[in-house]
């Protein structure tokens, strides 16, 4: 029973722990992660802006460098004279200073005058269409921006550029099906500045940076934005420039640790950004890992979406944080479960121990041990229970003691009765013969005339005392005599009334109030009325002896339960006086033959012993309750058994 209470306690603690654990896991694992993601998504959006700025700045840088060059008078003079040699020298210097991959002059007519690189003066073979220069010629205004350059153009500018631009398309998970296997075109940041002499257009200076395999922009973005943040030896921040959906400039690494040039964007992103032209942020699979990413389309100088700019943060670190958080929460949950079990166990043990002890104690009580140990009294509510239990035990112990004492007295009493009876019979018989002699010869002596008065007086004393011995022996015989009962069905109230009537005058003379209150509904008893009468007379005489003027004796009758183990129903006669009471040490001697507290010669000490014998022969008991100075109550209990037996018989 108490185990189940403990289990319940543990279970409820566990329930709380699980709940707390579950909430922690949900909050930690989900909400926190979500918060991370959304925080990171916001961050990555800002980073994309930065990346765009860097990208645009680079374009601006190219434009400014070219613009500055066109303003130089030496350059203008050389252009005016179409001095290719001089121009190439100057352009080479410019390219070196501004970090340009290609630069050249296009004439007003649209043909390339000269360029840096291995084909400075175009032949028919190297005379290719220049999209940005042509746009500038057409609009007669400076242009800068992203431009897609064909393989031929790049080869004409510099075969090295064409080589750099050529990218083998690699199969990439989650990407759209491969269209081409090689990309020969390149994407560049370029600018073209028209040079005027007055209103006369002298030509167009163009120049630019090939983005294919260029690392300066993406690494600048990474270093500016993420400031060398590392996670497990990897840069957490990545940036990529896409030509269409192809990575041409990136610091995303493939599993071999090389820049993942030639890999492609996932189909989902491609559809959003390239096809629909939207900015895209979120969790995305990049090359071979999950990143929190932001993409936006790159439009070329003609306003067409030709590529994408990307920044991304390795998700692994957040996933890791989440995993760490999760494991912390799981640990916490496990710890709290362990704590709950321990707490539940110990608390349960602590709470239930006194209860358990009480249960054990009750079991012991039910098996007859009335002084079981049940531990120290607790200060909690259980303490109240324990105190009540202790009180209950005390009264049980007292009751048990009383019952035991009573039954012991009874047992001793009946043994005493039997042995004293036998002894009395023998003694009485033997004494009576010598007593006959003493009485006879004393009386014969007293009849003589020739004795002095002194002798006569002494002889009278002998005669008197012998009479006294005779009386004692007679009582002893009365006591020991196993007189047959003469039982009749009789109303006990009538027997009591007769005895009270006989004693009324004596009580009146002594000034003691004697009252009888007959009980109602008492069935007839089968008993010897004469013997019962003598019992009652004896009890009343004793009561009168114990009382003085002004005291009272009250007799009541009623139904009562036997004080023995049978606890059978019977009739009780209470004789209660307000007299001197009986000393406790005398209580167990009360029914002994020859025990008396009355003055010598007044009591024989056999009255109660005889009464006890009579009541016992009727199957009843006499018990006494007494308190010194307050009085005594003698309770005669007589069984109904015989009566019941008859009834049971007739009913059958």
């Amino acid at each position: 029973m108490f185990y189940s209470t403990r289990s319940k306690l543990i279970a409820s603690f566990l329930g709380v722990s699980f709940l707390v654990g579950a909430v922690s896991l949900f909050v930690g694992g989900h909400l926190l992660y979500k918060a991370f993601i959304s925080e990171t998504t916001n961050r990555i959006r800002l980073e994309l802006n930065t990346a765009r700025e860097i990208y645009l700045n680079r374009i601006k840088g190219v434009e400014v460098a070219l613009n500055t060059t066109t303003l130089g008078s030496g350059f203008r003079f050389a252009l005016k004279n179409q001095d290719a040699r001089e121009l190439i020298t100057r352009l080479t210097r410019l390219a070196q200073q501004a970090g340009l991959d290609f630069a050249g002059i296009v004439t007003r007519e649209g043909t390339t005058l000269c360029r840096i690189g291995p084909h400075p003066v175009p032949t028919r073979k190297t005379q290719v269409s220049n999209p940005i220069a042509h746009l500038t010629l057409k609009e007669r205004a400076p242009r800068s921006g992203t431009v897609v350059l064909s393989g031929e153009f790049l080869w004409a500018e510099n075969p090295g550029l064409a080589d750099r631009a050529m990218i083998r398309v690699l199969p990439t998970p989650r990407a759209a099906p491969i269209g081409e296997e090689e990309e020969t075109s390149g994407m560049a940041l370029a600018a073209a500045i028209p040079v005027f002499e007055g209103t006369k257009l002298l030509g167009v200076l163009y120049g630019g940076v090939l983005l294919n395999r260029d690392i300066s922009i993406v690494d600048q973005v990474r270093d500016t934005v993420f400031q060398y943040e590392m996670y497990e030896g990897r840069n957490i921040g990545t940036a990529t420039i896409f030509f269409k959906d192809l990575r041409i400039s990136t610091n995303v690494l493939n599993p071999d640790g090389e820049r993942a040039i030639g890999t492609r964007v996932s189909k989902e992103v491609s559809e959003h950004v390239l096809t629909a032209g939207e900015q895209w942020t979120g969790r995305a699979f990049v090359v071979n890992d999950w990143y929190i990413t932001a993409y936006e389309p790159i439009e070329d100088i003609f306003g067409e979406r030709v590529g994408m700019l990307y920044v991304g943060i390795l998700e692994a670190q957040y996933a890791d944080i989440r995993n760490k958080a999760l494991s912390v929460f799981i640990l916490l949950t496990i710890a709290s479960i362990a704590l709950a079990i321990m707490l539940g166990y110990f608390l349960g043990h602590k709470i239930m121990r006194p209860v358990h002890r009480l249960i054990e104690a009750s079991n012991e009580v039910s098996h007859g041990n009335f002084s079981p140990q049940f531990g120290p009294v607790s200060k909690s509510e259980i303490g109240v229970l324990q105190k009540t239990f202790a009180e209950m035990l005390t009264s049980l112990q007292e009751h048990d003691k009383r019952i035991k004492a009573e039954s012991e007295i009874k047992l001793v009493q009946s043994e005493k009765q039997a042995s004293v009876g036998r002894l009395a019979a023998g003694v009485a018989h033997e004494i009576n013969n010598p007593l006959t002699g003493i009485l006879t010869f004393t009386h014969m002596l007293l009849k003589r005339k020739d004795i002095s008065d002194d002798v006569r007086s002494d002889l009278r004393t002998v005669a008197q005392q012998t009479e006294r011995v005779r009386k004692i022996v007679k009582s002893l015989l009365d006591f020991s005599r196993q007189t047959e009962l003469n039982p009749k069905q009789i109303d006990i109230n009538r027997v009591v009334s007769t005895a009270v009537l006989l004693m009324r005058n004596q009580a009146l003379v002594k000034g003691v109030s004697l009252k009888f209150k007959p009980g109602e509904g008492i069935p007839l008893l089968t008993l010897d009325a004469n013997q019962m009468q003598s019992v009652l007379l004896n009890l009343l005489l004793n009561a009168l002896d114990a009382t003085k003027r002004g005291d009272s004796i009250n007799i009541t009758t009623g139904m009562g339960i036997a004080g023995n183990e049978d606890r059978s129903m019977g009739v009780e006669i209470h004789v209660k006086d307000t007299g001197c009471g009986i000393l406790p040490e005398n209580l167990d001697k009360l029914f002994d033959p020859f025990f008396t507290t009355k003055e010598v010669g007044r009591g024989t000490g056999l009255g109660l012993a005889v009464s006890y014998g009579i009541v016992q022969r009727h199957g009843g008991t006499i018990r006494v309750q007494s308190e010194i100075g307050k009085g005594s109550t003698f309770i005669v209990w007589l069984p109904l058994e015989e009566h019941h037996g008859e009834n049971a018989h007739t009913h059958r």
Partner: protein
Amino acid sequence: MGKMHILIVDDDQIVLDSCKRVFEAEGFEVYLVSDAIKALEVLEHTTFDLLLVDVKMPEYDGIDLMRMIKKKWPQLPIILMSGYPTHETMEAGAQNGAAQFIDKPFTPEELIKTVRMVMKHEK
């Protein structure tokens, strides 16, 4: 009426002596025996007016003796003496024709009174 002849049967000498002392003072003729057999022997050749018999005696007790006497001399009055009168002995005594009972101990007056009462009744 001439001299009363009384036979007293008791196994205790002091009882015999006591009775003898009382009856002789009254002028009775007393014959003492200590058991039932002797009593029967005496009865064979002597006539008595009254028997005083103790109930409790070894071998044959007062009741046995009374039965035996009553068979032969049904008219002989017998007073039973007992130091331990019980309901059973009283009943047995009465059924077998005891004239009277007397409880031991008794005073001389009680004894004489009882004897005279029995004798009066017999007449």
